[in-house]
């Protein structure tokens, strides 16, 4: 069974034909050609496909696209503004918080949520980062990037 779903992705409206069984990540990547969202395990373990659905972090392999009909989606493509990386992205670069980069889009979306939810750096590391598997940097660089970014934000008030 196929049907049309309407999504607002990074502020831009889209309509796509999708099968009922298709997860949100596949519609983002294959229909909308927004390939910034990476698909790792397809069973909710790795967190690489994390996007924000109506502001909340969701594994886009664990939500059907038809369930997201009418929702506001944010993906990694929406973080940079006019070609300039967002501060959190810059912090990850500065602290070598990525190596192969496969998990980074999902990590960034969870961090975007944590920032808006005003979690502390410690809560973000222990609870939010726990939802992501990174097999290259081993979390040390990501942790340093979070601490650096949170400190900068605090200093900026």
């Amino acid at each position, binding site marked *: *069974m196929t049907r049309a779903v309407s999504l607002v992705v990074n502020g831009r409206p889209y309509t796509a034909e999708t*099968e*009922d*069984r298709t*997860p949100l990540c596949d519609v983002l990547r294959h229909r909308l050609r927004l390939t910034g969202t990476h698909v790792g395990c*397809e*069973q*909710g373990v790795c*967190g690489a496909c*994390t996007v924000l659905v109506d502001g*909340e*972090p*969701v*594994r886009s*392999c*664990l*939500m*059907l696209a*038809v*369930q997201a009909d009418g929702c506001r989606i944010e993906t990694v493509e929406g973080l940079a503004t006019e070609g300039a990386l967002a501060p959190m992205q810059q912090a990850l670069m500065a602290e070598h918080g990525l190596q192969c980069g496969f998990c980074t889009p999902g990590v960034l979306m*969870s961090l975007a949520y944590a920032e808006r939810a005003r979690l502390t750096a410690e809560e973000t590391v*222990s*609870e*939010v980062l*726990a*939802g992501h598997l990174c097999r290259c940097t081993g979390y040390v660089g990501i942790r340093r990037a979070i601490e650096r970014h949170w400190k900068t934000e605090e200093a900026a008030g």
Partner: protein
Amino acid sequence: MKSVPFEYRAPATLEETLALLGKPGANVVPLAGGQSLLPLLALRQVRPATVLDLNRVPGLAGVEITDEVVRIGALTRLRALVESAPLRAALPVLPETAAQVANRQIRHRSTLGGSLCHADPTAQLPAVAVALEARLWLRSARAERSVLAQDFFAGARTTARRRNELLVRVEFPRTPGRHCRFEAVTRRGRAGFPLIGLCLAVSLAGSVVTDARLAASGIADRPRRLWEAERALTGRRLDGDLAEVLDAASAEADPSSDLHGSAEYRSHLLRTVIRRAAARLATEGSAP
């Protein structure tokens, strides 16, 4: 890694939902938070003709507290359990346990009813439901009935829910003066899959246990009460010698071996979580 094709239905009323669920011969699977179902679909371990989304049905989520019971809608998200201030006051072991399930991202969608109906033998919340003698309310198009948690879990990923029934709410009895604790050992840090979980609930006179409830996950094909360990703990001090309690629990547990740990290791962990839960209750206590 793609689901079999299915038809997606998202009815807006409970009546319509139950009618679809009760259609004779229908191969329907209810979808709550989807955090366990979608992996099963992707792995083709579940091959439904229809996926019945419950998320648009009103009235299935929420926490209600009376003098006698804590009543929780089946579609209540784990995040809502963690964040519910009235629940923290009335039955703190529930938010404390929910906070140990997976990670924040999963808890945003995962539901209490979904966790119970998925009936993973290592899952945390089923063990709490069994320990606290929760009552699960199941509704079909024709009737409503209730089942005690200990009778609901029938085996690994198998429950007493009939195919035409939906779990609509769960009632946890309130026992004034009872202290509860949930302890688990997980595979990969705090957000990993649990190997062993234990819910310990005690009533105390001073530090002497007058009534004990123990239920564990990861020790059999379903969460189980540890009846002999309960008897052994009754009349004893929480901070006293627990050797008899631990031996009773070991004798009652029947864990299996897999690539994540041997049966012996799991038996050892069961003793560990009982000791930890008792020690924490003895020193920190918990609200009733």
